């Protein structure tokens, strides 16, 4: 099997998702070629052919253009699988590439077994085993689904890639930094997150106290940020920050896939949830099935001693 790995760059920097794609391809036993738009200064540290285009000509974001380039390279290289990260960049492109190739598209794969891709469904409560009905397949990989082995060392062989003449109108006007920047949860040793299970905005204070008592930072899931209960800069998840602290404590967090994507790499995960079957319990090393309004004060008391 041969796979085309689509790497991502953001403002000149190559994002680490490429290493996850490489690991997945290795697990699937596929030979690989890579493609990336931008990131010339620090291309992926992997051996192999890298088709490289410039953002100056191809644009930072231009799904029609990038998809066309990927499809072209995929056909030229005769790949069976195109692999992208299940990121806003990836899920924008994958269906377009798949349609151009007449290929099936599988979203948010977490595993690959006997020619079938495993993906989550229903907020992570179920898994589906999907089989492509076409020869080629385009796959987006869930962030953090596979862990790359060791430090990446390697040097790609660059092949220049020019974008085709511009097709569909799509203009990238610029980036917008998150409004309340501030907190860098990525550096925290301990992150204690509040989820919908806190019930009322007043209970966020409880979770915050716990974070402070543990010498850590407060994190939150998307619904709390959308509701204005916690500032956006503290959102942990696919559209928030990715964290990998020594201790991640999820309080009243159900464990939606998008959230787990942001904290999967935490060393030790503890959860407090009244539902023993909440998806978070799958990634948690220990789960306390209890009402956080009762348990957190009890924990705080014990931490004082």
């Amino acid at each position: 099997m041969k796979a085309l790995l689509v790497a991502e760059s953001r403002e000149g920097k190559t994002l680490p998702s490429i290493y996850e794609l490489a690991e997945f391809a290795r697990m699937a036993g596929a030979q690989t070629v890579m493609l990336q738009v931008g990131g010339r200064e620090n291309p992926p540290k992997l051996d192999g052919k890298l088709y490289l285009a410039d953002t100056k000509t191809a644009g930072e974001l231009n799904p029609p253009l990038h998809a066309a380039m990927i499809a072209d390279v995929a056909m030229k290289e005769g790949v069976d699988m195109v692999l992208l990260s299940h990121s806003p960049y990836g899920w924008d492109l994958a269906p377009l590439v798949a349609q151009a190739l007449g290929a099936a598209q599988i979203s948010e794969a977490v595993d690959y077994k006997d020619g079938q891709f495993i993906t989550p469904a229903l907020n992570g409560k179920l898994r589906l085993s999907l089989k492509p009905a076409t020869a080629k397949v385009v796959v987006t990989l869930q962030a953090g689904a596979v862990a790359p082995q060791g430090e990446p060392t390697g040097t790609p062989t660059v092949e220049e890639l020019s974008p085709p003449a511009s097709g569909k109108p799509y203009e990238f006007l610029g980036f917008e930094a998150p409004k309340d920047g501030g907190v860098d949860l990525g550096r925290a040793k301990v992150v204690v997150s509040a989820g919908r299970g806190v019930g009322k905005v007043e209970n966020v204070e409880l979770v915050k106290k716990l974070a402070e008592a543990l010498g850590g930072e407060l994190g939150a899931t998307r619904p709390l940020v959308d509701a204005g209960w916690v500032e956006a800069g503290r959102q942990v998840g696919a559209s928030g920050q990715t964290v990998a602290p020594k201790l991640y404590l999820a309080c009243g967090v159900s464990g939606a896939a998008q959230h787990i994507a942001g904290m999967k790499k935490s060393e030790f995960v503890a959860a407090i949830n009244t539902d023993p079957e909440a998806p978070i319990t799958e990634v948690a090393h220990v789960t306390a099935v209890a009402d956080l309004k009762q348990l957190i004060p009890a924990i705080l008391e014990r931490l004082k001693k």
Partner: protein
Amino acid sequence: MYLLALAAVGFMAYGLIQRVRALLHAGKSTADIKLQIGRALWQTLAQLKAISHGGAAGWGHAIFFWCFLILTAGTTLVFIQADFTDLLFGYKFLKGGFYKIFSLALDLAGLAAILAMGGLFIRRYIFRPVGLASEPADALIHILLFLALATGFVVEGLRMAATELDMNMALAQWSPVGLVVAKVFHGMDMASLTMAHKITWWIHFLICLAFFIAIPLTKLRHIFYIPVNYALAPAGASGKLSTMALDDETAEKFGASQPADLLFKDLFDTAACVKCKRCQDQCPAHATGKPLSPMKLTQDIGAALASGVGSSLVEAVGEDAVWACVTCRACEAVCPAGVEHVRKIIEMRRGMALMEGRFPGDEVVRALDAIEVNGNPLGAALAARGDWAEGLALTGEGMEVLYFTGCYACYDRRNIKVARSFMTILGKLGVKAGTLGKKEKCCGEPARKMGNEYLYQTVAAENIESIHATGAKKIVTTCPHCFHTLANEYPDLGLDPQISVEHYTTFLAARMASFKPNGPIAPVTYHDSCYMGRYNGVFSQPRELLAAIGAPVTEMAKSRETSFCCGGGGGRILAEEKLGTRINAAKAAMAGDTGAAMVVSNCPFCLTMLEDGVKTGGLEEKMKPVDLAELLADRM
């Protein structure tokens, strides 16, 4: 004189009737008004509402009212004799023994009235109760009434000085107060006395006319309006909300956004209100710093009406005030004017909810959404509704009693214990009880109280169908909100009137013999839930049950009709309390003040609120909230 009198009374009548006419035209159709005249007369004459929950001021008013009634009756008799029977037929009836009693009665009435006035004056202007605002009109009323009484005695004294003093002391003694005044004028010659009498009589007459004129212009209009309001108050179940006809496809307006959308009674209430602030003093929202005062709300609606039938009610009253209400009806329980505050608030909420999709917070919208999708506001899965009864023996076909469990008892950990305790009791009583299981949906009450009549009627219709399908003829609930809604409001939507609905307190009270003590029990205090207490008059049965199990009850300062709400009513169990201090904390403190070890309630909202209030108030070591069913379960 006659002309002036006629003019003054005419002015009064005109003013009063004009306002009523305006109110009749302003509000909605008056087709359903039924006047309860007999009841109104009785309530007015006995001053029942003035006295109950009125304290010393209430008695002051009652005494003044009766005395004024006596004086008015007396003056009328004098008028009839002087200007009619004596004038035209030479017939006098104010004579002999009758006249003696007559004189004494009037004198004592006049004196008592002056003393009552004095007391009320001291209360308003010297003690200055908190929250009692005084306007120039109040001073005017005090002055007018006092002068009317005072000049009355001066007139009498002058008359007696001319006709009875020294001349007929035997008769004079029957007018003791007048006699004292007469002695002041002792020694004046007849001509001076006659002149003084005439002048003072006219002053008295003009003051009384001024009084008539003041009636339509000040809160004195309550003399006529409150008795009328007593006649207008509904005769049926208290606190029952109107069931909106939602299948009327031509209806375009729902709820009350303007004064024109309110009922005649609602608008008339604003005229009957005398700003006595008793409602405000009872209101738990007001007591905890919310911008809601039932008195101010009533006045604000009146002001909105004055600025135009199409003006915005919510702007006049304030949106936060409208949402802060817990529909406890403590205001209505103590109002001497028969004002119904809660219905106006619900109608305004309906206006916002149904016409604008406006609710007091996102958490309320989420809860309503959850009722719509999963049949409960807690967001739990509908398939899990029957899980609380795991391991319990439930009867399906042929159930004697349908236990309508309610959302909290089905899904909330603390309240599941209450449901299971109740099932234990039913088991020991040998009652074959069943539930609707997964089919049961929220009774719809919190949605209804938040103004979402449409969602309420939707879930209610589904429940009614499920209930009828069981064939059960008796329903028992452990939740007062479910009880009130199923018993008093579901029949409007088609629930078979043959099905009797009871709350467990009355159901078990009827089986009192089954309960007995089981060892010593720490002193308890009992919390009257609003929906069993004020709404449905169930005060004594729970107390009798507590006595049956040997639990000594220490009452809170506010109990029974004036019980302080836990804060969970009016749909507010769905909402966050963002303003002021917590009602449930205030309530828990009140319970804690009794020194009891347990606070007993009969409602899942009360239990939830008290548990929360006990924690916030740091009373966990001192007091335990417990449901009556939990106490009864192992004392049979």
